[in-house]
């Protein structure tokens, strides 16, 4: 165990197509309900890949109660700010700070870190320039002259990848060490890992870690489908019939702090953060190694970091994005570490789609729910395990975790692999 003491999780928040609270999302998963449905943000009737798990019917002001702010942030930021706000409120840290003397409160702010895995549509911000391009009729001088009257002056700010980072700071007064990680799917998981490392190494006393994304935009859906990465029906992790992933959108956040601090202020402890591992396979943007090299190494590093033996892991939450190559190589990588003695494995993306930069954090938050309740949800879209994957303990039925320690796997573009290890606190209740 690390010399600087244990790290605990004292707050959590999540939002996705399956619900606006962790309880709602967890209940949907327990009952086998998926939020995947036809896309509503534009008319997809002619589209080959028409499905996603959207956040529909949401009241933006109910998510973030600052009318002015909505003008200078984008959809992905809204989700990240909401999830971070829920986690911070739940932790009780703000009430704690308000009871401090001014000097102590200032020190508290400087010692509170913010770590964000930031994602957003790659293309959405360019759509704002289409009316100007039409007005310019191919002339760049006209484009330049008409710019100010045609495009929102706040355009750049609205699309800053570090918006959640700075607005969490402004809204909640966290001023300490920070990072905004733009490493696509693994961004959120890496934000958690970096937050934990910052506290362990003494750079911060506590931190909020957020992962957020909103990938459901026409060009991203179009290109992913053309590349064979998107399913035209549903997401079937590890199934012989799996045909790709399905996008989701949303965010999740956790508060990490030193166990001694959390106990001293009487905080509710949801779980303990034990360790992380992060590697690339170095095979380029889209290619992954069939042998699961990166996944296996990330898990081994995480277990070592956590000082946990493979046989102590009671549950694996797999990335399970439903694509042919990722699922097969992920299973291979996980199996290599566990040497045939695998704990129950499950995956959650069938319920709320792939949150891209938000995926690792929401999986971690839900892993804590599963470990706490001693209930590993089945994967209802898993009809028949792919025989090419070989023996792998995933099931359409519920399983029971072997311990309260869980391993969360997260993979992404650029052949990235991240593994997180957490332990759930049995007595905690999630508000």
């Amino acid at each position, binding site marked *: 165990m690390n010399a600087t003491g244990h790290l605990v999780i004292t707050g959590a928040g999540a939002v996705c197509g399956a619900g606006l609270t962790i309880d709602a999302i967890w209940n949907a998963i327990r009952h086998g309900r998926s939020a995947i449905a036809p896309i509503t943000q534009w008319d997809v009737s002619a589209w080959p890949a028409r499905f996603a798990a959207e956040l529909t019917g949401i009241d933006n002001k109910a998510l973030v109660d600052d009318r002015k702010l909505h003008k200078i942030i984008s959809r992905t930021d809204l989700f990240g700010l909401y999830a971070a706000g829920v986690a911070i409120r739940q932790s009780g840290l703000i009430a704690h700070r308000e009871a401090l003397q001014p000097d102590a409160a200032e020190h508290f702010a400087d010692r509170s870190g913010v770590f964000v895995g930031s994602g957003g549509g790659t293309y959405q911000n360019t759509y704002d*320039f289409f009316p100007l391009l*039409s007005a310019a009729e191919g002339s760049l001088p006209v484009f*330049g002259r008409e*710019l100010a009257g045609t495009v929102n002056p706040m355009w750049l700010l609205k699309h800053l990848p570090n918006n959640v980072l700075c607005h969490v700071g402004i809204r909640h007064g966290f001023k300490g060490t920070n*990072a905004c990680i733009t*490493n696509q799917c693994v961004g959120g998981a890496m934000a958690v890992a970096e937050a934990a490392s910052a506290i362990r190494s003494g750079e911060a006393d506590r931190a909020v870690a957020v992962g957020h994304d909103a990938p459901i935009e026409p060009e991203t859906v179009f290109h992913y489908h053309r590349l064979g990465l998107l399913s035209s029906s549903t997401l079937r992790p590890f199934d012989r019939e799996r045909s790709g992933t399905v996008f989701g959108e949303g965010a999740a956040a956790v508060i990490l702090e030193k166990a001694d601090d959390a106990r001293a202020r009487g905080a509710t402890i949801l779980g303990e953060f034990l360790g992380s591992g992060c*590697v690339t396979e170095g095979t380029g*943007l889209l290619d992954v190694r069939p042998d699961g090299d990166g996944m296996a190494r990330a898990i081994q590093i995480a277990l070592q970091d956590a000082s946990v033996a493979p046989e102590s892991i009671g549950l694996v939450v797999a990335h399970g994005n439903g694509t042919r190559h990722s699922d097969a190589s992920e299973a291979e990588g996980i199996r290599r570490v566990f040497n045939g003695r695998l704990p129950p494995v499950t995956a959650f993306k069938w319920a709320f789609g792939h949150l891209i930069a938000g995926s690792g954090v929401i999986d971690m938050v839900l892993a804590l729910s599963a470990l706490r309740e001693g209930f590993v949800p089945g994967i209802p879209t898993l009809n028949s395990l792919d025989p090419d994957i070989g023996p792998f303990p995933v099931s359409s039925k519920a399983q029971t975790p072997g311990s309260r320690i869980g391993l969360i796997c997260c993979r992404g573009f650029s052949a990235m692999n991240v593994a997180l290890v957490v332990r759930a606190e049995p007595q905690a209740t999630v508000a």
Partner: protein
Amino acid sequence: MKPRSRIAITGLGLVTPLGHDAKSTWESLVAGRSGVDRIKGFDASGFIAQIGAEVKDFRAEALIPDRKLLKYASRSCRFALAAAAEALADAGIQPQPSTSERWGCSLGAGMMGVSFDEVKAVHAFCGEGGGFRPDGLLDNDFPADPVAFCRSQTNNGLALLTRHFGIRGYSTAVHTACASGGQALGTALKVMRRRQADFMLVGGYDSMLNPIGLSGFCLLGALSTDNDLPERASRPFDASRNGFVLGEGAGFLVLEHWEAARQRGAHIYAELAGDGNSLSCYRITDSHPSGDGPIQAIQQALADAEMTPKDIDYVNAHGTSTLMNDRSECAALRVAMGDQVDRVLVSSTKSCMGHLIAAAGAVEAAVCALAIRHGIAPVNANLTQPDPACAVNIVREKSQRQRIRAAISNSFGFGGSNSCVAFRSPEEVDARLSSKSLAIP
């Protein structure tokens, strides 16, 4: 607990508006030559700001002999590949199959992925008045290009660099606007200290010198509009400054553990000694007039490096040449440097090469390493009437030859992300090491 590892900078690579390598960039900075000119890459005559610091006559093919790889690389990723290749060659060490898992990569990556040509290609399928018609993408004539999709992705630079150079360890891409390069350095330092890597390739790269990137800053009124005096337009700390000049480029560094670098006989530029990192929590575009935020970043970097202001001889300022930044930064330096502030030399090399946005922090880190190596504080060009509100000891008129024992580099981004990175000369490290060993009874 094991003692903290000391981290050495053993290789540098630069592609900047002043040159395509570290040597030519450094010579121009020392001479105070400007890389700013009227924008030539596209017709900017309709924009309020028509000047920029472009990387000139850059041909990646000459530096990276891999045409397939370059097809997947945007302009900024090409800068990154070239600068990274130079840094690795300079360090004299490359990832090998046996060491690839111990090599990491940390990047400050720009925010713009989609090229202007791609935006125009989609626009061609829009409706009346530029109304976006998603079904246009399904049109049989739409030129769907999977390679362009790859170029647009936020971590494509990471994919290209790790694949091309054979890196298989800890890898990350970060973005905190103009502080991105500094943040990438800080992340790399932490990863090395945690011993998650034995070597790190770290850098920043960006190019927003295209119609959309330029638009973003024009809309905010952040750019100098001195279109008729391009080489004078970037004048950090001058009373008449009126905005920054948009630049482009890349800067890369190779990091190793100090003892390992010494053992293999590597040439060490400097120690990457400390990192400080804070949020201003003030406003999205403005910096706090008191310097709150940057103050904490500088103080943290000094504490992390086990330095006091007395140890610092040179500050490479963020110094963007905007009214607010330069005042706020000087206020921060006055607090953080205390009674040493009138002694410590300060310059903004953006006066010559403009603002490289996500690349700035990494390029300026390399400048600090070169300043230590050569014992020269590069000039803050174009300073004729110092702003009385910028009361720091600025390197005026010409570069100043002086032994630099330690330096810091500031980078502050939109959104109030502040980064400060500290560097120590190898001689100072040796002096500390020998005094420590003497202290052992």
